[in-house]
């Protein structure tokens, strides 16, 4: 009996255990720990002066149902939908045709898409300010072309936020569509064409269906972050477009109402998990194509 027990702890198993141990510790400390902390926090009361009081309450969740905060969720949803729609329209053809390029150009395109990531996304957004601001690059261009005769007030508007969002998240769509389209067996498309399908028909019945997982994972990867990218709404929207992300940030940093911020985060997480669940049901894949 004793011998058998010892056999279980063979050297190989021991090494394997030690090898994955850091991963478990890391996950526990930096992912599960904070999540549990946030969940607990969301059921506590805020203190009069600073911090929280250890008293159970559901108030934070009830407060979310106040019309103004519900509206924030709806606004975020709308913006995320608009953003994702635009990204899909621009990103899908981009990724699809990129997969059709020959090897050398594929690499080059990949490289070109990567370059902006060498700069912090915050700095890239400040670049948009230079373009959008009064008498900025766009204004000067439009006035030089005699399209407008006075500076447009483009910065700090809703469209500016949408542009910023699309710009920041577009690469995720391109990559996931690309990785899906790259695996596509083009001989199937050829076969469809041989059997008399028009190019549009062949695309719709073969290519589009087969790249669907890529498109859907692109949707998930752009839709979810766009609910929470508060700094884009801050910088390009002049703080006037209030998203759930902005609300959480403000409740945490300015109002010092940590429990309410935690409750908002929990609800946001539930909503996003729901999105991923729906995605899995639709696309029947167990993982996010391409990126995860």
């Amino acid at each position, binding site marked *: 009996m004793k011998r058998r027990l010892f056999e279980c702890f063979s050297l190989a198993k021991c090494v394997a255990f030690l090898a994955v141990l850091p991963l478990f510790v890391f996950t526990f400390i930096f992912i599960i720990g904070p999540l549990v902390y946030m969940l607990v926090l969301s059921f506590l009361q*805020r*203190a*009069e*002066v*600073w911090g929280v009081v250890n008293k159970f309450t559901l108030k934070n969740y009830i*407060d979310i149902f*106040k019309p*103004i*905060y519900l*509206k*924030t969720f709806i*606004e975020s949803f709308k913006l995320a939908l608009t953003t994702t729609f635009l990204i899909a329209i621009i990103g899908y053809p981009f990724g699809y045709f990129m997969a059709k390029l020959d090897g050398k150009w594929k690499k080059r395109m990949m490289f070109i898409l990567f370059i902006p990531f060498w700069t912090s996304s915050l700095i890239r957004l400040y670049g948009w300010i230079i373009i959008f*601001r*009064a*008498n900025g690059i766009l204004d000067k261009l439009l006035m030089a072309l005699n399209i407008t005769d006075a500076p447009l*007030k483009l*910065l*700090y508007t*809703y469209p500016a936020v949408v542009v910023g969002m699309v710009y920041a998240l577009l690469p995720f769509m391109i990559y996931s569509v690309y990785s899906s389209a790259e695996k596509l067996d083009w001989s199937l498309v050829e076969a469809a064409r041989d059997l008399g399908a028009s190019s549009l028909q062949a695309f719709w019945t073969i290519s589009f269906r087969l790249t669907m997982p890529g498109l859907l994972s692109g949707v998930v990867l752009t839709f979810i972050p766009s609910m929470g990218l508060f700094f884009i709404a*801050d910088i390009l*929207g*002049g*703080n*006037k*477009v*209030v998203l759930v992300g902005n*609300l959480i940030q*403000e*409740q945490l940093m*300015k*109002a*010092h*109402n940590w429990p309410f911020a935690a409750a908002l985060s929990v609800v946001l997480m539930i909503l996003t998990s729901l999105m991923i669940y729906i995605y899995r049901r639709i696309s029947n894949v167990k993982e996010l194509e391409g990126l995860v």
Partner: protein
Amino acid sequence: MKKTYVLALALVLCFSLLAGCGRSPSQDTQLNLFTWEGMFPQEVLDEFTAETGITINYSNFDFNETMLAKLQTAKGGDYDLVIADDYIIETVIAEGLAQKLDKSKLKNFGNINPVYQSQFYDSKDEYTVPYGAGIQTIVYDPELVDIDITGYGDLWDSSLKNSIGVIGNYRVINGLALKVLGESYNTEDISKIEAAGEKLLELAPNIRLIKDDNLQDDLLTGEISVGVMYTSQVTLAKLSNPNLKVVFPSEGIGFGIMAAFIPSNAPNPDAAHKFIDYILQPEVSARCFEWLGFYCTNKAAEEYISEEYKDFLTLPIDFSGDMEMIQRISAEAEEAHTKIWTEFKSAAGK
């Protein structure tokens, strides 16, 4: 470059060792100053060290609350002098973390402008010496604005559609509506706060921008033509464009005071007193405020402030004295404020 730093660091360490050898570590050789980054011009600090032989250890915090937490952990020790915001000092004093000043050691105490004294956080002026005040004023570019702005009420004028920029401090901006309605900044009456919220919704179409950092840039580039901003931003704006107009709202102004206090168990209280007295000297004080860009809380220093700064570092001579400080309010009132603020922001985005 790196080598130079290392060398400099080594030298400093050597010197501090030598200093330790030369003198017995008496209480007067050091001052542990704890405040925000960049509160004093370096020359003033250096001159203080040259004059008194007291070295300054400057450590800084970002938020008042961090300062409070550190002071609580150190039980009022570790630091000799702290400069922070009014409302947190109220808590510091209430928790017994500050000690009474020995005014016999402060011969320049009388230089302080009485307007900034005897405030809620230290009603008898026993613990604190004010060091700079922030006043939320309206600044506008008269070339881009058709009306004469004299008070908060004018911000509601329809000619200012989509052209006002405000700071993101909800107590200040909500307070602006409370003031227009003739209420106090610090009312805890929820219905009054909600009425201010309604009033703010009418202001929303005029709001182009809400932001805390560098709002003056948007005024200077013409992105906005009217701004409600912090004193330090007004200073920067006026220095770049002297034609801008600064308005003391007729409804009365709100202001915040930064003040210095000595923690209850400060290791070197003598050095702290010496430093306070040093910066209360009129000439030194004037230099500090020109550098800091906040309202000068030192009456005697005003005559040393150069003409180009006077406009926005000192109160107007005919100033009515109608000021109210923003104070801490109940959690319930605070939540009502954040609610109307969120409503205001999203209405401005429509």
